[in-house]
């Protein structure tokens, strides 16, 4: 039985899963919706615990890590977030780490903002990286790689100008009035749940670095659990079932990308969800571009929640500025320059995937750029 596997935030996998009789039996005994709700609840609880562990660890070892990577300003923080996303093969945990660093006082607001931007840029390359490995192994994957390239250059084309807008908003004092007050009630509920756990960890004398590593592990498991809680898409009864055959309005695909990613919280998982909507696993280029643009906005929802839980109003504001900047830039492009933008992105995509050499050069540049950014 072919099945979508979503173990991680930023890798698209379509594999074949053979179900053992025991697994089939357990699926028959426990309804699917109950498994999903259980996964979602466990995922949320583990997510919050992970953030607490990361915050504790970041207090002690965050500064050492930041010093080791020479993160001294917003540009190096951009490279730091970008590289960490490569290491974690995902953007969301890195964005969450950025927020905990901010909460622990390791990074300032501007550095946190650019590190979150870097995490998204790095996460986009993961989709492409996996495809490139297939490509090098002789598979005919040029067209498949194209969507990874498209996701990456679309993200860069929107995020980099949006970053400038966000930096201006944060440094000009424009957003100082934005407040988020959901911190207190959330905190009190989670404190009640986690205080005994954290007290016990402290009592055991677990070192900070171990807490930090445990926090990262818990974060990755939390995202896996949340992925498993995703609702199934019925391709036969969906208004978007012809996504491979007809061209939808850009604004419609933009809204769909936002809606789907507000549930999946991952751009690449949202892309993989397009597969069951398309009979032959194909989507039109016209449809994917605005979809990625929409997905790139709501992919911040988990970071927003993380900011609310560990960083309070200030951290929430930083992530919100990121979301609003990206949304604003995306809407300006969609409403006024969409055709030009679409043509430019797709021409660049075609140029990059033209042959192995151009693709290898592009990938090399993508690995070198964040390292260079760390110098600044």
């Amino acid at each position, binding site marked *: 039985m072919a099945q979508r596997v979503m173990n991680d935030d930023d890798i*698209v*996998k*379509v*594999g074949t899963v053979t179900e053992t009789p025991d697994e089939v039996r357990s699926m028959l005994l426990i309804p699917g919706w109950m498994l999903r709700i259980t996964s979602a609840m466990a995922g949320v609880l583990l997510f919050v615990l992970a953030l607490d562990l990361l915050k504790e660890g970041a207090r002690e070892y965050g500064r050492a890590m930041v010093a080791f990577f020479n993160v001294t300003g917003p540009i190096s923080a951009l490279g730091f977030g970008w590289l960490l996303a490569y290491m974690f093969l995902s953007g969301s945990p890195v964005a969450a780490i950025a927020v905990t660093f901010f909460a622990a006082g390791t990074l300032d607001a501007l550095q946190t903002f650019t590190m979150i931007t870097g995490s998204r840029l790095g996460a986009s390359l993961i989709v492409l990286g*996996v*495809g490139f490995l*297939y490509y090098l192994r002789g*598979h*005919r*994957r*040029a*067209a*498949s*790689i*194209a*969507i990874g390239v498209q996701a990456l250059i679309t993200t860069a084309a929107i995020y980099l100008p949006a970053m400038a807008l966000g930096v201006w908003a944060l440094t000009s004092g424009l957003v100082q009035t934005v407040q988020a007050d959901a911190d207190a009630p959330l905190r009190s509920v989670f404190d009640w749940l986690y205080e005994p756990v954290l007290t016990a960890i402290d009592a055991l004398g677990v070192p900070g670095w171990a807490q930090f590593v445990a926090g990262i592990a818990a974060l990755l498991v939390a995202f896996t659990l949340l992925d498993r809680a995703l609702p199934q898409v019925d391709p036969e009864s969906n*208004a*978007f079932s*012809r996504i*491979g*055959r*007809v*061209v*939808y*309005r*850009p604004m*419609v695909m933009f809204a769909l990308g936002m809606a789907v990613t507000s549930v999946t919280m991952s751009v690449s998982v949202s*892309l*993989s969800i*397009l*597969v069951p909507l*398309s009979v*032959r*696993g*194909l*989507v*039109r*280029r*016209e449809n*994917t571009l605005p979809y990625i643009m929409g997905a790139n906005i709501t992919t911040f929802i988990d970071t927003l929640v993380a900011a609310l839980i560990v960083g309070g109003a200030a951290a929430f504001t930083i992530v919100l500025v990121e979301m609003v900047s990206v949304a604003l830039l995306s809407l300006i492009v969609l409403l006024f320059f969409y055709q030009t933008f*679409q*043509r430019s992105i*797709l021409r660049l995509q*075609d140029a990059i995937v033209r042959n192995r050499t151009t693709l290898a050069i592009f990938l090399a540049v993508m690995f070198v750029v964040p390292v260079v950014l760390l110098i600044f």
Partner: protein
Amino acid sequence: MNLLIYAGPGPWRDEALAVAAQFAGQVATSITLVTGGGIRNAELIDDAVARLGLPPDVVIKRRVVEGTPHEAILTVAGETMYDLVIFGRFQRPLERLLPLRRSDALTRQLRTAVLRVSGPARSIRRLLLASGGDQHTFATARYVALLATPLQASVTLLHVVSQQPVVFEPLAPLAADEATFLAGETPEANTLRQSAAWLRERGVMVATRVRFGLVLDEILAELHEGDYDILAVGTHHAAGPLDRVLLEDLTGDLLDRCPRTVLVARRAAHD
């Protein structure tokens, strides 16, 4: 064929009549000439009859209607079933820059096939049929054959591949070049082959082209590179109100951006 031709005032009136004159006499059994603006434009209909040079066996009906050209065409088109409605582009060149002045408004409201004339009048020698690769292609091919056969014009069937696989698994092998795609067994390739064969059976010279990229851009690029006289497209996907909200109106976009004459075919019940 039962034709409805707009003969009243309009920016592309002369060109519309010149294009219609090339085939109307050969394919039409009945032609209705219509003008808006009331009786003061009646003489334009006589002028159109003279320009069309129709043989005596073609039945000619004259209709002078009050109101705008749009209202006149819609009024007369609503009275009986026409096979083809012919009119010149009403949108002036600079009006294309205004986002709300869509040039497909009239075409969208008509329930019949439309020949919207634009650009300098040319002898119709080459037609480009833009195919979505589905069964609707045959409906468009039927209208194309009606024009191409008497004019001995050649037809190029064009399909634009803008699809790309979403994931890295071999769910969807996609031919990356024209020859491989055409030789393949995809539904689109089969439709192109069958449509080409159908047109050849009717004595039409047919070529097939496949391009890769954005649909709108590739159609316009082929139109320009191949120096075609008419672009033939279908309009069929927006089946209901939800579709009209969700789907991009590619036919409308082509009508807006295409500098040449556009034939918009509609699928009849018997197609």
